[in-house]
Structures are given as C-alpha cells and as structure tokens.
C-alpha cells in the first residue's frame, strides 16, 4: 500500500470536527454550572417549561457545537493544523466539560 498517496487530505477538517465537539461539550458544562450560579441564566435557559432549563442548556451546547464546527472547518479545511495539538486541547475541554456537569461539582454553586 502506498502510504504517501493515502494521506493527502489535510488534517484540518478532522481537527475542526473533534475540537468543535469538545467545545459543544464544554458549553453544555458551562451552562450546567452557570445555571446553578445565576438564577437569571437558569430562567433564560427554560425555553420549554415541561423540560425546564435542561432544554436550553443542551440547545445552547448544540448551537455552539454547530457554529464552532462551521467556523473551524472553514478556517482549516485546506490546511494541516497539527492534529495532535488540537486533539490534546479537545481532551482538556472535554475533561473540563465532564467536571462542569458532575453534580458534586456544580452543586457547590447552588443557591441554598
């Protein structure tokens, strides 16, 4: 198999897809903890009463994911951007996102 001919696609599109998924997860985490810190944000995220703020938190996360993917993809679609570095950054964002959605963490900020 000819290795060189099989790696012609730049790594930018892969880096954009992975980093944007991590950004979306981070934003879901930020909304989750943010809603505990700010009653105003919690109320604003309540886009549909039966679902409560969960609907807004996840919608904002999905919108952030879609927009960041579009922007990063357009920036990087024809470039090699250092996939390993972008992947490591994605792992950090995902780790922070996981922590921000973990109840023992975000309940530290809950109003009594």
């Amino acid at each position, binding site marked *: *198999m000819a*290795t060189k001919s*099989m*790696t*012609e*696609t730049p*790594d930018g*599109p*892969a880096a954009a*897809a*992975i980093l*944007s*998924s991590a950004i*979306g*997860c981070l934003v*879901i*985490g930020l909304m*989750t903890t943010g809603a505990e810190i700010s009653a105003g944000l919690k109320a604003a995220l309540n886009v*549909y009463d*039966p*679902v*409560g703020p*969960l*609907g807004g*938190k*996840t919608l904002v*996360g*999905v919108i952030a*994911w879609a927009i960041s993917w579009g922007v990063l993809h357009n920036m990087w679609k024809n470039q090699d951007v250092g*996939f*390993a570095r972008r*992947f490591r950054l*994605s*792992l950090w964002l*995902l780790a922070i*996102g*996981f922590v921000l*959605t*973990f*109840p*023992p963490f975000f*309940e530290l900020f809950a109003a009594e």
Partner: protein
Amino acid sequence: MSMTSQEWWALIHGMGLGAVYLLAFAGGLAGLYSFRPEWLTESGVAERARRLDWGVWVMAIAAWLTCITGTWIVYPWYRAKPPEGTTDLADFPRYFLLDNPNLAAWHTFAMEWKEHVAWFAPLIATAVAYVVWRYRGELAVRKQMRDALIVMFVLAFAAAAVAGLFGALITKAAPVA
C-alpha cells in the same frame, strides 16, 4: 399485557435506541482498532472503510435520537409536577424520589448527571463519524488520527454508559408510567 405510551417511549429511548448505540459502539471500536494496513489487504481496507462508515453513522444517529427522545419526550413525564394536595407521588417520578430520603440521590446525583452528560455522546459520536467518512481508507495509515478517534469513541461511550446505567436504575426506582 399492555403498556402506556409513556412506557413505550421509555422503552424506545432506553432499550431500543440506547441498545442500538451500544451495539454500534462495540462494532465501531473493533473496526477502528483493527483498521491498520498490516492487518488488511488493499481491497480489505476499502471494504472495511465502508462498513466502519455505516457503523459510526448508525452510532451517531442513535445517539442523537436517544438524547432527543429522552430530553424532549420522556423527561417531561419524569419531572411533571404533581397537582396541589397529591399524596401518592408514584406517577411523578422526580417528586417521588425527592420525597424519600433513601431515594433522593437517584435524582440529585444520578438524574442530574445523566441528563447533562448524555448530550456529550451525540456531539462526540458525530465528530468521529464525520472523520471516518471524510478520511475513509486514509485512516488505515494515519495511526495518530485513528488512535485519537478510538479515544473519542470511548469517551462517547462513557458518556452514554453513565446515562444508560443511571437511566435503567432510576427507572427501576421510579418508573415513568
């Protein structure tokens, strides 16, 4: 034997779509791990790439449908507020759990974590599916990218596993009926 529409939707959400997701994960992980040039012929790479492509998209679509049905269809029944003066909270799972100190953690920890972290799965799974589709046979010789996809795949599974496990246990403690 009959089931309410709430029970049907809970079944579709958890046992149907959730199970498809977990099965697709197992196939996708095995496919990605073994997608390496030293183990495959050139025609094997092409055939495996097509199969992998299908598997990861099935996983991504199942993740989206699981989260959408869970959040927008099943969850409102779970968190429905009982009318003033209701003493039997069995039909109001969230309030039933919170009313019982021995069960309250199923809501305050399990449901609170599950409902948020579950949404990581479709985002990550879609990224994996896109990269598999975009790079196809190239992944066989891009070890670094393939390894990264395996890590992302496992993280997507971990998020879904938290949601699936807690979903099953919460349903056992306080079913949506």
